[in-house]
């Protein structure tokens, strides 16, 4: 009974079934908004169809990638893979082994679709044929007049390596999940990050701590933030950092800051203007660098001195048909449109430029400077090198297996009536016609015949592609 179960669990049909089921899971994950990936869409959907979403929640289809069903499928997939690989090891050993038992009569050899005989020119014998085959990359063993040659003998090992890479990705992925620290960090020009948890942003979510390991032990100061924009396209975001050792780092999009296995990836940009509020007597009541998420037309607000200031930002301000607009995303003419509220009632509205003043109800709001702040995605995980090794190994192995596949030939040199003849049979993995063309070309070259051989198919040009 157990043997039957193991046999089924290790069958390729089961593998294909699992892959199809996983494919189905992925498709569900695409069509049904996933809670962890598209939160806003999920909550919107939940508000519109609460009963349907509750039903799908109960089936765990809204968190499908980490649901018990999916994890079970993955578990079975890797179990199946391990069993298949275990069973294949002796087969692979057998296939890469080379022995005299493989030397057979070419004309009656089973499983060799290519069979030909060639008259040999004077001076050419079995030894010279074998030497020429060796020059062309074949490993050849001989016994009497017969020989066996194989090219890319070790290619079946790549099968094992390709599937082993899946386990590397599994190990790396599991290690990453358990050791992952994830958080968001908002930091402005001139500010320092000391590594404390309290400095991480609580929006959109508080930092998630690693199950194994500590939060990142990283410290740096942001010296300068320079966004690069051309028209409406962000073409760069250069951030100069000074680390705890006093070394400068210039980072950008696609060039994160990495320290202590932690990656700081630039996720967003905002404005951090210095506002100063003065009372009717001209005395400063309050002042602060206010972190505003107001780029790309987003509205934001801040509280100061008992007032609420609702802000809209125009990086390249222009009036179009009497309405405020921006010509581009370039910071050529930065202007804040501010609506002032007190007790939820708007009391004033106006525009504010750098070193400008917005007067309302006797008060004055001044804007002294407009530095930037950036949002970092902070992630620390220990499995990444293992995962990338898995990807790299998979790529190498698939290239090795599918391009440098095995070719085998068996041959015999016969002496009959003073004439020497080479009889050969050949086969290759995966391809029959391509192999025939290849062997014809190989042996035509070896025995010195021209390619205008009546054996070659005249309707096919010299190149089989």
């Amino acid at each position, binding site marked *: 009974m157990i043997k039957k179960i193991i046999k089924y669990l290790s069958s*390729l049909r089961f*593998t*294909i079934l699992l*892959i*199809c089921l*996983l*494919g189905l899971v*992925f*498709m569900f*994950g*695409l069509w049904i908004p*996933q809670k962890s*990936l*598209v939160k806003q*869409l999920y909550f919107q959907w939940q508000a519109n169809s609460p009963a349907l979403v509750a039903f799908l929640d109960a089936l765990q289809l809204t968190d499908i*990638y980490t649901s018990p069903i999916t994890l079970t499928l993955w578990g079975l997939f890797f179990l199946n893979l391990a069993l298949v690989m275990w069973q294949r090891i002796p087969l692979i050993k057998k296939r890469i082994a080379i022995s005299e038992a493989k030397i057979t009569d070419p004309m009656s050899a089973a499983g060799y679709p290519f069979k030909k005989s060639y008259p040999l020119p004077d001076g050419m014998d079995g030894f010279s044929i074998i030497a020429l085959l060796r020059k062309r990359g074949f490993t050849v063993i001989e016994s009497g007049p017969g020989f066996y040659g194989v090219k890319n003998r070790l290619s079946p090992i790549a099968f094992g390596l390709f599937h082993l890479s899946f386990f590397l990705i599994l190990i790396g992925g599991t290690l990453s999940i358990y050791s992952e620290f994830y958080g968001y960090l908002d930091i402005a020009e001139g500010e320092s990050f000391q590594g404390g948890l309290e400095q991480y942003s609580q929006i959109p979510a508080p930092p998630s701590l690693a199950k194994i390991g500590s939060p990142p032990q990283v410290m740096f100061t942001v010296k300068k933030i320079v966004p*690069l924009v*051309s*028209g*409406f*396209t*962000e*073409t*760069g*975001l250069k951030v100069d950092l000074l680390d705890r050792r006093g070394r400068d780092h210039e980072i*950008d*999009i*696609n*060039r*994160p800051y990495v320290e202590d296995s932690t*990656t700081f*990836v630039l*996720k967003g940009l905002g404005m951090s203007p210095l506002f100063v509020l003065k009372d009717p007597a001209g005395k400063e009541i309050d002042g602060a660098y206010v972190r505003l998420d107001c780029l790309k037309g987003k509205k934001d607000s801040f509280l100061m001195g008992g007032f609420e200031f609702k802000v809209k930002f125009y990086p390249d301000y222009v009036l179009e048909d009497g309405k405020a607009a921006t010509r581009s995303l370039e910071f050529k003419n930065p202007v804040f449109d501010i609506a002032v509220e007190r007790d939820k009632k708007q009391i004033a509205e106006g525009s504010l430029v750098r070193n400008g003043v917005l007067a309302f109800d006797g008060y004055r709001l001044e804007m002294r400077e407009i530095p930037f702040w950036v949002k970092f*995605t*902070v*992630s620390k995980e220990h499995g*990444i090198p293992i*995962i*990338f090794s898995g*990807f*790299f190994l*998979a*790529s190498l192995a*698939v*290239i090795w297996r*599918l*391009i440098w596949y095995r070719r085998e030939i068996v041959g015999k040199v016969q002496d009959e009536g003073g004439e020497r003849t080479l009889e050969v049979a050949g086969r290759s993995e*995966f*391809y*029959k*016609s*391509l192999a025939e063309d290849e062997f014809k070309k190989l042996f035509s070259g070896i025995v010195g015949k021209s390619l205008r051989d009546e054996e070659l198919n005249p*309707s*096919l*040009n010299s*190149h*089989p*592609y």
Partner: protein
Amino acid sequence: MTYWETIFFLITLGIYALASGGYIYSLVFKNPRVMPKITFLVAGGLFAQTVAIGARFAATGHLPWSGDYESALMGGWIIVGATLIVGWRNRSLQGLGVATVPLVLIMMGFGYMRNPVLTPMAASLKTFWLYIHVYFAWLAFGAYALAMAAAVLYLLKRKDSQRPVRNPSYESFPSLDRLDELIFRYIVFGFITDTIMITAGAIWAKDLWGSYWSWDPVETWSLISWLSYGISIHLRVTFGWRETRLAWLAIAALSTVIITFFGVTFIVNTSLHMFNVR
């Protein structure tokens, strides 16, 4: 689009439309002599497309890498280029254009509807991983498209072989055995380049988004298409699926690639792969 880009893009579309009509004429009216002439016409279309790409490069300073329009423009160029190279090295395979040229025509038509405005290179695309990822993506798509084309030729020729009166247009195609092998060879090439594309994409994603895999719709569909072709290879090598079954697999599997490249961004706007700025 620039002035010259628009002109040459439309000329390309016109030529590919004529060529598609010519291929259909050649098969339906059993006139194989037209096929080499259509190949010259397609080569002319490719030249016009190259000029369009050059005009866009001159205006933006970068090759067309991002967005549906640029993907269709550059991807179509690679598919037609691959078709012509294969047809040049082996005249019996000129017929691959029967399937690839109409595919490219539809792709480019779709791309044209998808905001072909000129944009400078976005910051998120400024990395050498872009070239590796996108280059291998287009090699994979091109190879899968050729596999589909070989499959179409196979099915047409096989159906014709069962008729009492044969269509001479199919005589110039390779034999059914060779077409069957070609399908598999193109799938293999596509699978290798697809694997490299996914690997490069994961490494790039770690630097750009902070995570090597986010179950983004485009990522998920690229995994689905990779698995589809992986299953095809398994079915061929292990279960001996060949000929008609493999041909239909090659045609069906291409749909997953088309969804990955164009379908996802057409339907959803929450994908991390939306690199269009405006």
